[in-house]
C-alpha cells in the first residue's frame, strides 16, 4: 500500500505537532536557565542575553550540590535493593507454584495505588521516633517499598518470556546449576532487570511528596525537594534563574536515559499492563 502524498503530509504534520507540544515547555526551561538575571523579566521565549551565571551559582552552593548527591545516592541504593528483592519475588511468581501468589500480587497492586500522602503522616512520626527522620535511610526504605510493586510487575512479565528449558538443556550438556544460571539465564534476564532498574530509578528521582515530608535539611533532601526550598539572594529576588538551571540539571539524566533506553522503557511500561 503506497502512501499518497496527502497521507504523507498528514502524518508529517501530526508528528511535528506532537514534537512541538512536547518540546516547547522543555526548551522553555532551558532558555530560562540561560537568561541573564537582568533580562529574566522580559518575557521572550529565548534569552536576549545568554549567561552561564545561573549554573555557576547553583554548583557553587551546597544548597543544590548536596541534594543532587543525595538524589543520586538515594536513587541508586533504593533502585539496587528494590530490583534485587523484586527479582526474587518475580522469579517465584513467574516460575513457582505456591499458595499466596495472588495475595502477593494483590498486595503489590495495593501498594502501587497507595496515596502517598496517607503514608506521609505516619511515616513522619515513625521515622522521628526511630531517629531516621532526615536521613538517607529514611527515604531509601520507603522508596524500596514503592519500587517493589513496579519491579515485581515488570520483572514477572519479563521472566515469563524467558525460555527456561534452556537451563535444563544447559544442564544436560554438563553445565552445573551455577553455570547454567550465570551463562544462560542471567544474560536472558538482564534486559528485564535493566529496564526495571531504569523505571524504579526514574520513580526515585522524581518523587517529591515523601522527599519534602521526611526531610528537614539538605542532609537528606533530594534535588526536586531542594528546588522547592531555593531562596533568592534577597527576600525580594525570585530565584527564577537558579531554579530553572537546577530543573535543567535534574532533567538531563532523564533525557539521556530516554535517548539510550527508549525501547526498554516502552517495553517495561507496557509489559505489566497488557497481560491484564
Amino acid at each position: 500500500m503506497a502512501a499518497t502524498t496527502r497521507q504523507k503530509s498528514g502524518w508529517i504534520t501530526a508528528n511535528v505537532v506532537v514534537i512541538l507540544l512536547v518540546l516547547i515547555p522543555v526548551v522553555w526551561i532551558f532558555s530560562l536557565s540561560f537568561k541573564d538575571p537582568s533580562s529574566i523579566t522580559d518575557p521572550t521565549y529565548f534569552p536576549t542575553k545568554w549567561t552561564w551565571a545561573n549554573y555557576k551559582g547553583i554548583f557553587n552552593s551546597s544548597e543544590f550540590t548536596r541534594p543532587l548527591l543525595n538524589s543520586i545516592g538515594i536513587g541508586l541504593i533504593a533502585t539496587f535493593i528494590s530490583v534485587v528483592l523484586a527479582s526474587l519475588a518475580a522469579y517465584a511468581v513467574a516460575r513457582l507454584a505456591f499458595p499466596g501468589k495472588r495475595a502477593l500480587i494483590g498486595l503489590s497492586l495495593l501498594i502501587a495505588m497507595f496515596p502517598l500522602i496517607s503514608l506521609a503522616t505516619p511515616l513522619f512520626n515513625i521515622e522521628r521516633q526511630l531517629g531516621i527522620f532526615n536521613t538517607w535511610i529514611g527515604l531509601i526504605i520507603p522508596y524500596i517499598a514503592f519500587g517493589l510493586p513496579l519491579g515485581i510487575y515488570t520483572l514477572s512479565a519479563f521472566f515469563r518470556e524467558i525460555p527456561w528449558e534452556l537451563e535444563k538443556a544447559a544442564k544436560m550438556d554438563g553445565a552445573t546449576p551455577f553455570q547454567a544460571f550465570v551463562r544462560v539465564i542471567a544474560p536472558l534476564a538482564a534486559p528485564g532487570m535493566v529496564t526495571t532498574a531504569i523505571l524504579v530509578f526514574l520513580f526515585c528521582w522524581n518523587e517529591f511528596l515523601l522527599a519534602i515530608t521526611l526531610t528537614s535539611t539538605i542532609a537528606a533532601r533530594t534535588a526536586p525537594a531542594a528546588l522547592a526550598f531555593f531562596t533568592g539572594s534577597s527576600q525580594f529576588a525570585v530565584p527564577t534563574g537558579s531554579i530553572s538551571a537546577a530543573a535543567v540539571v535534574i532533567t538531563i539524566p532523564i533525557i539521556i536515559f530516554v535517548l539510550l533506553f527508549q525501547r526498554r522503557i516502552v517495553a517495561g511500561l507496557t509489559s505489566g499492563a497488557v497481560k491484564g
Partner: protein
Amino acid sequence: MTTGTDVVTTAEPEVTGRRGRPRLSEGARAERRLGWLLCSPAVIVMLAVAAFPIIYAVWLSLQRYDLRFPQLAHFVGLSNYGAVLSSSYWWHALIVTLIITVVSVAVEFVLGMMLALLMYRTIFARGTIRTIILIPYGIVTVAAAYGWQYAWTPHIGYLVGGNSAPLTSQGSAIAIIILAEIWKTTPFMALLLMAGLSLVPEDVLQAARVDGATAWQRFYRVTLPLMKPAILVALLFRTLDAFRVFDNIYILTAGGNGTYSVSILGYDNLFRALNLGIGSAISILIFICVAIIAFIFIRLFGAAAPGTEG
C-alpha cells in the same frame, strides 16, 4: 515444556522419570517453601512501609495530637473525622480533586488514544516520536511544574501578556494545573493504549474494511471493544494517580486561591498546622476514596487487575 524435554532426552527417559515422579510431592513442598522464601523480603518491606503505617495512621487519627504539644495527646474517638467531614475545606478539596481527576483523565484518554494511533500507525519517524514522548513521562514533575509556573507568571512568561496573572485566580489556576498534568502524563496513557492496540489482530480490521466499514466504524466497533482491557487498566492507573495530585499544585499555586487538592490539604494540616490527628484523619479518608475508586473500576467496569492471571 515437559514434552520438549522428553524429546531431547529420549536417550535416558527413565532417569528423568525416576528423578521426577517420586519427588513430586516433596518437590512441590520444596517449591512452595522456595516461593515463600523468595517473596518474603519483598513482602516484609512492603508490609513494614505501607501496611503498618496505615494502621498506625488509623490510631493517630483517633487522637487529639498536636505536634507542638505531644505530651497532651489523648484518645478522642472519631471526633477528628467529624471535624474533617463537617469542614468546608475538606469538601472543597474533594471537589477540586475530582474536577482535576475527571477532566485530566478524560482529556488524556482522548489525546492519548490519538497519540497511540499516531505512534502505532505512523509511517514516519516512529522511533523519534516514541523517544520524544518519553521526555514528559520521565521529566521530574517539579521541574516541569516550575516551567509552567514561570510560563504563566506576568513579566517572565511567554504565555501570559500584559498584567494578567492567571495563576492567582481559581478557575484559570486549576486549568493550568490540569494542563500541566495532561502534558506530563498523556504519554504514559498513550503507551498503555498503544500496547492495547497491538492486541487488535490486523486481519479482523482487514475483514471489516472488506465488508465496507469506514475508518471510524472500524475504530469504534472493532478496535475499541478489543482494546477494552488495556483501556480500563490505563484509566484505572491514571485515575488513581490523578486523584493523588500533589507536586504540580504544590509548585504552581501551593494550594492558594482555592486550588488545593485533598493531598495538599493533608500536607498543610500536618506540616503547617502541625495537627497530626486531623492530618491522619484526612490521610485515612483519602485512602478510603482511593479504595472506592479502585473498587468501582474493578467491580463495575470489570477491569482485570493487571497480573492477576498469575
